[in-house]
């Protein structure tokens, strides 16, 4: 007999963060030893140096060149975290996991630009106060900012891998500070059987799978060319998906949002009440029409195998990637699985362009996570972290600037984590 899977998430909220001699959590006050962080990171000779800084909510701080945002999490015992990257896959998504809540490790750095305009790092900003702060959830977390400088001669894949691995190690190390402490909050997730009358809902999650700098890893393996597959929601919470996506900041999913999958959390909260959460389907962006069609039909069949009545279909990236979302939506609707799509709009700076680059008649329920092309004017800041220059613009990042919404980390998050949307005027 299978035993029912449960995952207990023990939360340790952080309200204050500073650098100091010893890494320790006292109440909600976290002190981090930069020397410890450096020692941990520099065991990888691919990393030449790392600058460690703190960015607190409300401070006059701008973080640029953001690559990933990771919530510190690890499991008691062997301290497992981020399966495939740092730990074995066995044990993922069950038992107990500790997390530092309201806290994030932010990896920043300039990756090698070899001239590809598509598979390239884009500007990514977090303003901790001022006009821009309202649009990034990470203006409200206590952040440890890691600015990486890489050893010369690394290729793009090596650079990305080194920074990702180092960031995950730091995230795990920080979470481990909680292992002997009593949590402020504990939530145990289960997915018990329901009475059979409740509508069965799945989360169909698009992943960016374009290749280097625009990629997602599952259990430590790149999902480029992946076939649609299933993932248990609890595996999201235990870091099964790690972002390698450094394209537009507003719409991409940093690891933080896979860890805190808002669709899974909402479905879990309502499981047994007005729905039955039947599971998650992951699907890629495919490079051409036949492969998009093949992938979409297969994704829909997986949802059908989970006996889904409805699917929340979340997008990743935009443009080409939204075509796959529409193909999946059509494939689901055509076999009787109702859909709600969550995606960002590309309505132009004036809001006058059509929001959608592609659509199917079946996509009659689309939740908007806002227009990514709106320009936000942000003011000057006292502290600049993550770099000295914009990747693609001129001017001193310390000064005021006109930022497109798509450059603000998390603003248009397509897992539906945020409250930004767009309406017709």
């Amino acid at each position, binding site marked *: 007999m299978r035993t029912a899977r449960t995952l207990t998430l023990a939360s340790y909220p952080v309200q204050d963060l500073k650098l100091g001699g010893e890494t320790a959590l006292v109440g909600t006050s976290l002190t981090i030893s930069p020397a410890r962080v450096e020692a941990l990171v520099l065991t990888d000779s691919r990393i030449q140096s790392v600058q460690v800084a703190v960015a607190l909510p409300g401070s006059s701080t701008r973080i640029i060149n953001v690559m990933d945002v990771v919530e510190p999490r690890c499991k008691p015992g062997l301290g497992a975290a981020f399966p495939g990257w740092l730990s074995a896959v066995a044990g993922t998504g069950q038992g107990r996991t500790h997390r530092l809540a309201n806290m994030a490790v932010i990896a920043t750095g300039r990756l090698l630009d070899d*001239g*590809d*305009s*598509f*598979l*390239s790092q884009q500007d990514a900003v977090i303003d901790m106060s001022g006009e821009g702060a309202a649009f990034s959830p990470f203006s409200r977390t206590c952040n440890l900012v890691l600015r990486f400088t890489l050893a010369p001669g690394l290729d793009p894949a090596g650079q990305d891998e080194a920074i990702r691995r180092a960031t995950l190690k730091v995230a795990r190390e920080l979470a481990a500070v909680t292992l002997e402490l009593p949590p402020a909050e504990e939530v145990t997730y289960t997915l018990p059987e329901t009475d059979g009358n409740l509508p069965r*809902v799945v989360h169909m999650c698009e992943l960016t799978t*374009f*290749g280097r700098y625009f990629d997602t890893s599952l259990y430590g393996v790149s999902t480029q060319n992946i076939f649609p597959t299933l993932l248990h929601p609890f595996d999201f919470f235990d870091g099964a998906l790690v972002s390698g996506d450094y394209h537009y900041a507003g719409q991409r999913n940093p690891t933080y949002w896979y860890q805190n999958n*808002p*669709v899974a*959390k*909402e*479905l879990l909260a*309502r499981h047994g009440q007005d*729905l039955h959460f039947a599971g998650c389907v992951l699907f890629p962006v495919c490079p051409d029409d036949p492969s998009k069609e093949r992938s979409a039909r297969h994704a829909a069949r997986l949802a059908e195998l989970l006996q889904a*009545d*409805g*699917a*929340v279909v*979340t997008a990743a990236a935009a*443009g*080409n990637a939204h075509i796959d979302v529409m193909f999946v939506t059509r494939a689901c609707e055509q076999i009787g699985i*109702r859909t*709600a*799509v*969550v*995606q960002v*709009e*590309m*309505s*132009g700076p*004036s*809001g*006058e*362009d*059509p*929001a*959608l680059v592609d*659509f199917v008649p079946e996509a*009659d*329920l*689309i*939740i*908007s*996570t*806002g*227009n990514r092309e*709106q320009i936000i004017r942000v003011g000057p800041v006292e502290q600049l972290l993550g770099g000295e220059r914009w990747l693609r613009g001129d001017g001193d990042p310390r000064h005021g600037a006109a930022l497109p*919404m798509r450059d603000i980390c998390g603003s248009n998050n397509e897992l*539906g*984590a*945020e*409250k*930004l*949307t*767009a*309406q*017709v*005027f």
Partner: protein
Amino acid sequence: MSALRVVHYVNQFFGGVGGEDHADHRPSLEMGPKGPGMLLQDLLGDEGRIVATIVCGDSFFAVSEAEAVDLISAFLSETAPDLVICGPAFDAGRYGYACAKVAALAEQGLGIPAVTGMYPENPGFQFCRGIALTAATGRTAAGMRDGMAAIVRLARKRLAGEPLGPADEDGYIPTQVRKNTFHPLTGAERAVTALLAKVGGRPYRTEIPLPAYDRVPPPLPLASLRGMRLALVTEASVVPRGNPDRLESARGTKWFKYPLEGLQDLAGEAYQTVHGGFANAIVNADPDRAVPLDAMRFLEQSEGFSLYDHFYVTTGMATPIADSLRIGQEIARDLQQAGVNGVLLTAT
């Protein structure tokens, strides 16, 4: 504070002149409220006084618009209102057109705040879209009370200079500009709730309605390629190495033409793509795969056309439609001047 001076514009029917047989009624100025103006006065209460009603036949406005506008302008100048209300026109096409035009005249021509109302699909709306606030009403006069109430609410906001809420909240026909706002709930919460309504057969509403694109009819194909001049045009951002003219990688606003004379193909050493929407390596290795000069040179021999000695390039990645339209028109003009008969347009 004294009551606002309000002038109400209505057609021959609502003005009490007569039905369709009086649709040619010349614009006239009546004292006080007429017809639905009574309801309007009631809704305005002490805030406003309908000092006059302009009555104009729907056909008169349609057929003798210039004269109608002259007369109505004179009436408005004479009565000097603080606010002009037109209609509501509901689903009536000619009346909707007239209401839209008069409201636009007041706002744009005379600087008088004006509000009108009609059914959202009334073709008249486009004539005041973005110029005068238009309440969204039902199809028929059965919705007069609701329609007039919506007009009055909008008029209050207009006069107070209050920013409008989204169209569906404030009851006006949208100009279709999409603006970012914050919702009390997250996207995930909204998605799950709306999905359950959809699955359960209950009403639900999309936040992004599917667009209706206009169709561009393609021109007739060339009967024969022999003797024709063809040109290569692309949005694949293929430019000379180094991108000397700084073509954008996304949201293109520029286009360029580069010489092909004497070239049999585009070499990766001399050309590159800077397009931000696809992985550049394949086109950088062989730019002919985005701008097929090699194939065109081959076909020139067998098909007997001549290839124009320049190719045209822009960037079509997240490019706003207005820019695309302008770029297309400018390239088309250049192609015409160059005597080009047909274009091979490569897209990504």
